[in-house]
């Protein structure tokens, strides 16, 4: 191909280009990749690029940007071109990152221990005591193996002379490694031949090291350790990664409310009871981890966690308080500290940094403002970096005053011209240069820090943009580190699980997961049944047929009884009815609306995202997009409802045919059945209670909304009559849309669930089943069957109440744990 891809690629003489040397020829380690591109036909390339786009959508890879209109579902940006790294240069970077991780761990050990660095004047107290990141409650804590920094990430960039510089340390719960892995999985499939031919080092061994080290560091009383991944939840910007990593590592994904501390020991609340947790890989910032001792208003944390840490009963990766090292103000002090603690020079320098809290540094900063980038000294300040050379006139004066008034709060860094790398421009259909940086990852192992043989590459969104951040719309790149020799193909994670692991994963289902699956089931069913009823109303509103018109008020009355519609005025006009029905379909803020149920469904599904297949996600994503805009007309709404029904049916199919039938799954089905029971009992009971004429006129739409009209016609081939209709939708256990079917399914699942989880079986439904079995069906043969209808309606009222009571009972018994259930 197509030299045109590369021929117009711009070289900037003042910057280092990753792909091309100063002579405009590809660098040695890029040559074979460039040859591959040149040799490939356009179609192959286009296919690969399309594959990357499709994979991101199919896998639902997302990244949340705060305040972004795409919100929680923003697709991840991945450039289809990998960034190539030569093995010898990578070896140097690896050593340097391991050294820095070793150093930072030693600094943490000192700061939360003897504080010799402070006493010796190697680190200013302002950067420790004066920093929000230093956690006094953590003083004196010592983690197992003295590993404070279990997982470390570092951002590096390359200066024009080709040397690497560190620009940021990530020491709390660094993100990005999961995205790097996801990038790798996508690109290695998109360009599988190139990946194989170029002998790219694989990432699996690194993640195995993460697992192993957590398991080895976890304090146990002899039992096999349980590690969990602690996430702030689905609203976090990197939640996708948390879910992805948890699944990949085989750790339960938990939120603070899933864990509880009893007797200085951390437990996971599971459907079976409390299970001890030995290690926590956390993505929750220090502040939020323990409302008892850290930020009191944190609803995300685990009260008493610090007590468990103090008692040495749990391993935290990373240690609480490790955020103190995320300040760039420390950079200038690290060379001397490296000498003091390791007796070594830093192998990669930090970007030249002046902490303005030192008077000489402040003077320097103000004198050389044009060559510097000014940043907040402490990460909690959340201020944008300011490029000195862009500051003019009054803004410059004001900024200088701000620095002078609070010099401790600022650092100045040398303005490094970032290196450039090629990214694919979908608009120009060729390669264009962008500023890039790398995030590298290291994990503590008994043999020292292991560094991931790959990285999360990040590129600026536009030409000339200097700040690289996914929060600012940058794009990511896979980084291909080439191997000296043939690459060892390490088998994937799953192949090394033993039987014991397989059994265990089944038992560690957090109660919250069961609870959200239960509600997911209820809301999915609520969407479907609500849509079915509203469809019956909409189709009649749109037909303009007199017979249809006459039953509309009955259907709307049913909607009101079932709280899908708010109460309408008795003499409501046709327009008012239409508006009300349209809102009941598409207005998520109207109580009981289908759109509201869709929103609640998405919320519950978000909480158990890691358990849903991507196809399942697709259907959910389509659903939540359906009602992005209000429906302007009955026809439009009817169309929307039809599409919604299709997706609901897909969801029902996934529930039965696509999900692992573990203990969590049963709660999804219990939720669906309990909801359908409630709905059917309310719907049918309402019709039975209405006056004879309305009752008989309602049978047709009743069968339709109970999704049984086809069966009825096939069986009876005549207009609906009360007896055969109630038989089909109340008593017939073979009809999945009958009351009796829901009752028997609920009983079956409750029995197996209670047996598996070691609980007693709730008996709330037994009396209803008995009454139904003994119901006097021949009483419907009477000339006027009104008394029979009333008797059955009363029974259905009881059924509805029993369904509510059962729902409460399931909540209490399986999801809300009380003390004393420690196994």
């Amino acid at each position, binding site marked *: 191909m197509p030299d045109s891809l590369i021929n117009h690629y711009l070289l900037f003489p003042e910057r280092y280009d990753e792909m091309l040397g100063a002579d405009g020829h590809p660098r040695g380690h890029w040559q074979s990749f460039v040859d591959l591109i040149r040799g490939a036909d356009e179609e192959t390339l286009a296919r690969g690029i399309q594959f990357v786009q499709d994979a991101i959508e199919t896998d639902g890879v997302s990244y949340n940007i705060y305040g972004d209109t795409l919100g929680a579902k923003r697709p991840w940006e991945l450039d289809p071109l990998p960034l190539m790294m030569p093995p010898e240069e990578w070896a140097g970077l690896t050593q340097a990152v391991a050294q820095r991780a070793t150093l930072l761990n030693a600094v943490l050990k000192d700061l939360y221990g003897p*504080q010799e660095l*402070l*006493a*010796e*004047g*190697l680190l*200013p*107290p*302002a950067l420790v*005591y*004066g920093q929000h990141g230093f956690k*006094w*409650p*953590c*003083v*004196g804590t010592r983690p197992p193996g003295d590993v404070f920094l279990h997982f470390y990430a570092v951002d590096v960039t390359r200066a024009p002379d080709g040397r690497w510089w560190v620009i940021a340390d990530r020491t709390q719960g660094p993100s990005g490694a999961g995205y790097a892995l996801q990038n790798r999985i996508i690109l290695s499939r998109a360009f599988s031949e190139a990946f194989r031919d170029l002998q790219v080092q694989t990432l699996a061994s690194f993640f195995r090291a993460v697992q192993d080290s957590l398991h080895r560091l976890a304090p146990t009383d002899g039992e096999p350790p349980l590690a969990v991944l602690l996430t702030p939840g689905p609203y976090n910007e990197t939640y996708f990664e948390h879910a992805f990593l948890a699944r990949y590592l085989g750790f339960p994904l938990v939120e603070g409310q899933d864990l509880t501390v*009893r*007797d*200085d020991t951390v437990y996971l609340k599971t459907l079976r009871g409390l299970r001890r947790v030995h290690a926590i890989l956390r993505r929750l910032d220090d502040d939020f981890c323990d*409302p*008892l*001792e850290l930020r*009191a208003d944190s609803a995300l944390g685990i*009260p*008493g966690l610090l*007590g468990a840490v*103090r008692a040495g009963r749990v391993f935290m990766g990373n240690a609480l308080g490790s955020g103190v090292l995320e300040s760039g103000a420390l950079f200038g002090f690290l060379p*001397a500290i490296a000498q003091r603690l390791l007796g070594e020079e830093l192998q990669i320098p930090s970007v030249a940094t002046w902490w303005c*809290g*030192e008077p000489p540094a402040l003077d320097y900063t103000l004198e050389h403002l044009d060559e510097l980038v000014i940043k907040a000294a402490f990460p909690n300040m959340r201020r944008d970096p300011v490029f000195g050379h862009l500051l003019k006139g009054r803004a410059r004066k004001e900024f200088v005053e701000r620095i002078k*008034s609070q010099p*401790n709060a600022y650092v100045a860094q040398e303005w490094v011209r970032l290196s450039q790398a090629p990214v694919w421009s979908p608009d120009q259909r060729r390669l264009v240069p962008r500023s890039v940086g790398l995030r590298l990852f290291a994990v503590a192992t008994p043999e020292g820090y292991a560094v991931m043989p790959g990285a999360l590459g990040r590129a600026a969104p536009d030409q000339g943009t200097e700040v690289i951040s996914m929060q600012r719309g940058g794009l990511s790149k896979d980084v291909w580190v080439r191997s000296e020799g043939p690459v060892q193909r390490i088998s994937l994670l799953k192949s090394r699980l033993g039987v014991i692991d397989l059994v265990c994963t089944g038992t560690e289902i957090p109660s919250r997961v069961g609870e959200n699956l239960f509600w997911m089931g209820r809301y999915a069913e609520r969407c479907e049944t609500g849509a079915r009823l509203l469809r019956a109303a909409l189709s009649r509103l749109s037909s303009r047929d007199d017979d249809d018109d006459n039953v509309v008020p009955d259907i709307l009355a049913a909607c009101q009884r079932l709280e899908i519609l708010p109460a309408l005025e008795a003499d409501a006009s046709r327009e008012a009815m239409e508006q009300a029905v349209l809102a009941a379909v598409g207005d998520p803020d109207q109580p009981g609306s289908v759109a509201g149920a869709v929103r609640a469904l998405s919320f519950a599904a978000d909480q158990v995202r890691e358990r849903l297949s991507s196809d399942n996600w697709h259907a959910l994503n389509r659903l939540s997009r359906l009602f992005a805009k209000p429906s302007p007309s009955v026809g439009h709404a009817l169309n929307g409802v039809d599409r919604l029904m299709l997706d609901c049916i897909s969801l029902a199919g996934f529930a039965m045919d696509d999900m692992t039938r573990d203990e969590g799954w049963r709660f999804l089905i219990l939720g669906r059945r309990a909801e359908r029971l409630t709905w059917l009992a309310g719907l049918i009971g309402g019709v039975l209670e209405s006056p004879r004429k309305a009752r008989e006129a309602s049978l047709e739409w009743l069968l339709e909304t109970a999704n049984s009209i086809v069966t009825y016609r096939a069986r009876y081939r005549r207009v609906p009559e009360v007896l055969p209709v109630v038989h089909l939708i109340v008593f017939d256990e073979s009809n999945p849309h009958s009351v009796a079917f829901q009752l028997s399914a609920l009983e079956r699942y409750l029995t197996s669930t209670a047996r598996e989880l070691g609980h007693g079986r709730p008996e709330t439904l037994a009396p209803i089943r008995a009454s139904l079995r003994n119901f006097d069906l021949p009483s419907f043969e009477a000339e006027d069957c009104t008394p029979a209808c009333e008797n059955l309606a009363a029974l259905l009222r009881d059924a509805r109440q029993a369904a509510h009571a059962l729902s409460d009972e399931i909540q209490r018994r399986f999801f809300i744990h*009380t*003390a*004393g259930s420690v196994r």
Partner: protein
Amino acid sequence: MSSQRYHVLHDTIYRYDQPVGESRQLIRLSPRTLPWQKVLAHRLEIQPEPTRSADFLDGFGNPVRAIHLEADHEALLIRAESWIELAPRALPELARTPSWESVRDTLAYRAGRRYPPEVLEATAFRFESTHVRVKREFAHYAHQAFGTGRPVLDGVRALMGRIFEEFTFDPEATDVSTPVTDVFATKRGVCQDFSHFMISCLRSLGLAARYTSGYLLTRPPPGKPRLVGADATHAWVSVFCPGLGWVDFDPTNDLLPGLEHITLGWGRDFADVSPLRGVILGGGSHEPAIAVTVVPESEFDQVYEGEAVPELDLAPQER
């Protein structure tokens, strides 16, 4: 002057609207032992009996009891009872202390200069913290008391006097979360606000100041007997002076604490030494009732009328 002995009784009672299923509390109600303060006897009594409890020292060396209750309860009662002996402290010669600028420079960081342990410890109390701000207007206010070259503790004394003069004691004006900038604006508050403000001023000058929590002997109105439960916790300020160590100042009363201030503990501000901090499940609203009684040994029999100290009572009371 000879030593003084005190009996301190500090009751905290939470009565919850709804039962609490789980409760964790950190209790900082055990007085520290100091060169001038002996803790002759001390006990913490908690009802209902916690499922578990453990003692540890926090980062500032204050004793902490951590308790965990796992059974439903509708009230929680925590009683701290202590016998304390205070010995007279030699009042420092304020005018002969080093200039405040030299103290500021001793505390300031110079690359490679070693900190003596007591100075390093003091630097922990030089920066902003939850309730303390470092601001130019505070430095300016303090500077008017300190001037140039003034002996540091002489300056602190002047600052304390100015605050006492200009600020009005007003329990209605503030609550626990009132920012110190508001206190400066309204010049009203209670001992906690006075202390946070004074500490803010001192730290804004580059000096080290910490927040001390404890009790103060109160004087009943003339002719009236001392009443059980009529006292309160108190707070004051300690300032670091090289050579002397930490010296206490009480801006609420414009004096240097002596034989009437009982120290519980200290931290950067109130947030570090809050007597009770907890997380509960359930409970609804719950403002605790607090009763503190500080009794000199000589009045003990009279206050408690020869009886034992009152029993803890968890029976429901009218609210």
